[in-house]
């Protein structure tokens, strides 16, 4: 193991047996129409990954706008008070026949309502709009952003390359799942255009079966989640089969990059858990449309049953959301520390362990609505999830020890991830503990906790992953100083937004409130200011990428010094990724013995560095000769 010889030229593309499709996958195939048609009908996992990324980022933008609307409404509480009526012309107080001042009720603090002309009107309109805004935020962020973000966007692009494959196992199915995703999103957008829904993303019954009874939009929104589920199942299925069948020669299970392990664990969850929510949502639609009594006690159903069904899926899906985030950190930390990841096997098993235990803990969302025995069992099981999660954090930090750490933009995101995810994980402990959970349940503490995990974890990892693989995906570098600057802006904004919410929660602020008592106003204002900073940070990061596309320097093959297969091929990759089936000769993280492809041996003096550099140069020359021959 751990030697490089000329055979590695396979990975580079020497002596390819075919003359077509040698160019970058991004090279247009002809005019505008042809190119659009080419993308719309492509079965190339890279193009599908890029299309997913664009769709997910667009939905992230909409979900973010909804979040800012929610935070802006919470800048001021809704208040009514009696004030004396004043004659608008003279400014004199109005009095009635008996000489008593005439009072009127004045409502303030309705920011969302003011868009509907509801200023001074009943607070229902305002609060109802608020409820639609937070539902929109939650539903978009969960179903259309976080679930597909890493697996469908970055996973699609990199999973096949990381295992040395030309594509996923079922490329057409892959394209189909993208169209299903778009179709589901269109249903979601339709429900929004029809007025939106106010059920919350959890669709708890019987509220969700009775609200907006005259309208179809709740059905459309539920249908959207149902359809999106199929996209998720098909993607998961595709990845499971790809990992089993398409690994390159030389790549055993424990030679796989850890990104592949974690995405593999995620895929298993997607395939096994998503059908449950599919059926549940279908039952919900049946109940709404045909008044079949399943969940609504008014029809003889059981509302708590819905919670069991819902969380039986939605808890595993929490790990569908966080495992891919962990997957990215598994790559970023060793590559940018130029060091073998600590505890490779425990990392791989931790991913599978988290996936397995995640099926057994759904009841911890229901400590205040289920029986004592169930609550006790679920509390105990929940603590079990904490163990593999803690192991992962320790392993990541352990990897830094005696490393050679480049503080690049992706690495800054990985450190931010570690910081935020540790807070997110630790604040899960009082929620798993029964006696403190019955205080904290459904409070802002929970809101803060899952934002630290879902956003501080998954979204930060996703954005970090884009920074990590951007040069590979588009062949352009970006301005790293600007990228790090905006990462720090995001970090500050994030903590200001959500740390305040922990304290709001312990002090008694319930979630999903359009207004609040005076005691909470200061912390709410801090949180809102934080959310604006967060918005600026993300928009700045977007600007960095746009600038990179327009004016970025050409990216080398291996800007960070990675050893996994994607760093052997061109930036951006050719249509078939590899010109010939690659053969894997070393582990993914053998940084202490292998010279990163394309790196100067003087900069990176591993044993035998000069010979490795020479071998690489020969392979590259062969590839060039081959290209000019065509």
């Amino acid at each position, binding site marked *: 193991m751990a030697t490089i010889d000329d055979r590695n030229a396979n990975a580079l593309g020497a002596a390819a047996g075919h003359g077509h499709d040698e160019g970058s996958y991004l090279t247009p195939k002809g005019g505008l129409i042809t190119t659009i048609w080419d993308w719309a009908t492509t079965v190339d996992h890279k193009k599908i990954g890029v299309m997913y990324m664009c769709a997910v980022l667009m939905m992230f933008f909409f979900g973010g706008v909804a979040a800012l609307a929610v935070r802006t409404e919470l800048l001021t509480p809704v208040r009514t008070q009696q004030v004396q009526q004043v004659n608008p012309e003279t400014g004199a107080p109005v009095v009635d026949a008996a000489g008593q001042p005439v009072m009127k009720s004045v409502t303030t603090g309705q920011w969302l309502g003011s868009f509907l002309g509801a200023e001074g009107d009943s607070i229902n309109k305002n609060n109802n709009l608020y409820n639609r805004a937070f539902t929109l935020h939650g539903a978009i962020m969960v179903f259309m952003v976080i679930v597909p973000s890493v697996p469908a966007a970055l996973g699609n692009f990199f999973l096949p390359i990381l295992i040395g494959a030309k594509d996923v196992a079922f490329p057409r199915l892959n394209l189909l799942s993208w169209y299903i995703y778009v179709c589901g999103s269109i249903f979601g957008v339709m429900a929004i255009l029809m007025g939106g829904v106010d059920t919350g993303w959890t669709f708890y019954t019987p509220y969700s079966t009775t609200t907006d009874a005259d309208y179809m939009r709740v059905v459309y929104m539920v249908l959207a989640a149902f359809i999106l589920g199929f996209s998720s199942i098909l993607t998961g299925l595709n990845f499971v089969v790809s990992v089993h069948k398409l690994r390159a020669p030389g790549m055993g299970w424990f030679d796989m990059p850890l990104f592949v392990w974690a995405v593999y664990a995620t895929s298993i969850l997607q395939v096994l858990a998503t059908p449950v929510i599919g059926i549940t949502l279908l039952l919900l639609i049946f109940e709404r449309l045909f008044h079949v009594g399943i969940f609504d006690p008014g029809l003889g159903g059981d509302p708590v049953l819905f919670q069991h069904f819902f969380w039986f899926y939605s808890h595993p899906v929490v790990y569908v959301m966080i495992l891919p985030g962990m997957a990215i950190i598994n790559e970023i930390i060793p590559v940018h520390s130029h060091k073998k990841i600590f505890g490779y096997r425990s990392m791989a098993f931790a991913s599978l362990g988290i996936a397995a235990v995640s099926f057994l803990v759904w009841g911890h969302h229901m400590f205040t609505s289920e029986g004592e025995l169930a609550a006790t069992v679920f509390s105990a099981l929940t603590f079990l999830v904490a163990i593999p999660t803690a192991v992962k954090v320790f392993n990541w930090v352990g990897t830094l020890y005696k490393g050679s750490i480049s503080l690049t933009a992706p690495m800054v995101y990985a450190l931010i991830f570690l910081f935020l995810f540790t807070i997110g994980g630790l604040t899960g*402990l009082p929620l798993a503990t029964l006696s403190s959970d019955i205080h904290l349940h459904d409070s802002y503490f929970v809101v803060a906790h899952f934002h630290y995990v879902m956003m501080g974890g998954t979204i930060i990892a996703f954005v970090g992953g884009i920074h990590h693989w951007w040069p590979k995906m588009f062949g352009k570098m970006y301005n790293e100083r600007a990228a790090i600057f905006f990462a720090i802006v995001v970090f500050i904004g994030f903590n200001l937004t959500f740390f305040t919410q922990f304290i709001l929660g312990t002090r008694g602020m319930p979630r999903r409130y359009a207004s609040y008592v005076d005691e909470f106003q200061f912390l709410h204002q801090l949180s809102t200011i934080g959310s604006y900073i967060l918005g600026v940070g993300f928009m700045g990061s977007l600007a960095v990428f746009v600038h990179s596309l327009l004016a970025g320097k050409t990216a080398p093959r291996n800007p960070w010094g990675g050893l996994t297969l994607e760093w052997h091929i061109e930036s951006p990759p050719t249509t078939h990724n590899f010109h010939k089936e690659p053969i894997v000769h070393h582990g993914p993280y053998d940084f202490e013995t292998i010279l990163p492809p394309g790196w100067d041996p003087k900069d990176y003096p591993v044993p035998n560095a000069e010979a490795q550099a020479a071998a690489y140069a020969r392979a590259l020359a062969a590839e060039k000769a081959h290209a000019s021959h065509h």
Partner: protein
Amino acid sequence: MMTTEHIASSASILPSPAFPAALGDIAHNFIFKREGMGADPMAAGVSAVDSIFMYIFWISTVVFVGITVVMLYWTFKYRRRPGTIAQASPSHNTILELAWSVVPLGFFVYMFFEGFHGYISRISVPPDAIELKLTGRKWSWGVTYPNGAESPETRHVGATDVPVFYVPEGKPVKFRMISTDVLHSFWIPDFRIKVDVIPNRYTSYWFNAEKLDAHSTGTLADGTKYRDHFVFCAEYCGDLHSEMAAIIRVVPEASYNATITKWVDAVDPVELGRRQWVAKCASCHTIDGGKNTGPTWKGIFGRAVGFTDGGGHSAEEMSNPDAFANYVRESVMTPAKHIVAGYTNAMPSFAGQLSEAQMNGIIEYMKTLK
């Protein structure tokens, strides 16, 4: 200020009593205390929740600071210098990896048992608890006392008037709870416990309110000191979810008994009607002309009304006592039948929830709102 109970509980979880206990108090107050009415809750059972929370808090703080410091220190110390590679170091250490799996497990087992212990003590209702009947509905709380009394008192909280429920100090009180529509959740943050309120199924909630001592937040007209605690709905229930509050007012037992007796003694239909408004209607219908979920009751007697389906009643009809009474009764019992123009179908039916005397009281009360 901490009670002796608190000092004992925070001291027991901290290694060195003197300095860390003071630090513990500062952190504890910052995390849980609210200015004004929430300060220093002392209901029985609160310290069990707070002490396990603070225990987890301190362990988490130590772990978090440790991880962050190590992470930043290593990132700086082992920063990349061109011409060097990562130093050889083990990438696997069975003993270390076992240790950092098993040691947290030990802490988790302790947290689980402490949490379980506290939880059981919070949900096991003492047999001598006073049982009050609590109803949750969109979007108000109603409590019926053992003698049949309902609270006529309100306090303006935020945008609405919310009911004030009296409970005796230092005595176990149990609510038997049910919802008439969707899920709600009954939460008194100062007492550190919430329980979901579910349609078609009774759930129970109990607490042992603190002794008042010097911690009152106000005085009644007769000079009796009391202490108020917020009640919030913690399970999302629609438009006015955030306004679905109430006040739990802890008073001396003698004052509690006198108050609920006084409440039930009033038989004047107008007063009875007003109490129904406080308990069941105030969250949606104003009596001062202000707009809310439903039409205001101010001047409703004799005011023409139009429906969304085009129908309605003239001012003349609405001033006829019998026609008016029938209109009100129909609106309360079958609210979805006709919707007043400009409003939505938001009102739940109150069929089965009002006695004839109470229904009559509402009608009589409405007539007084000119």
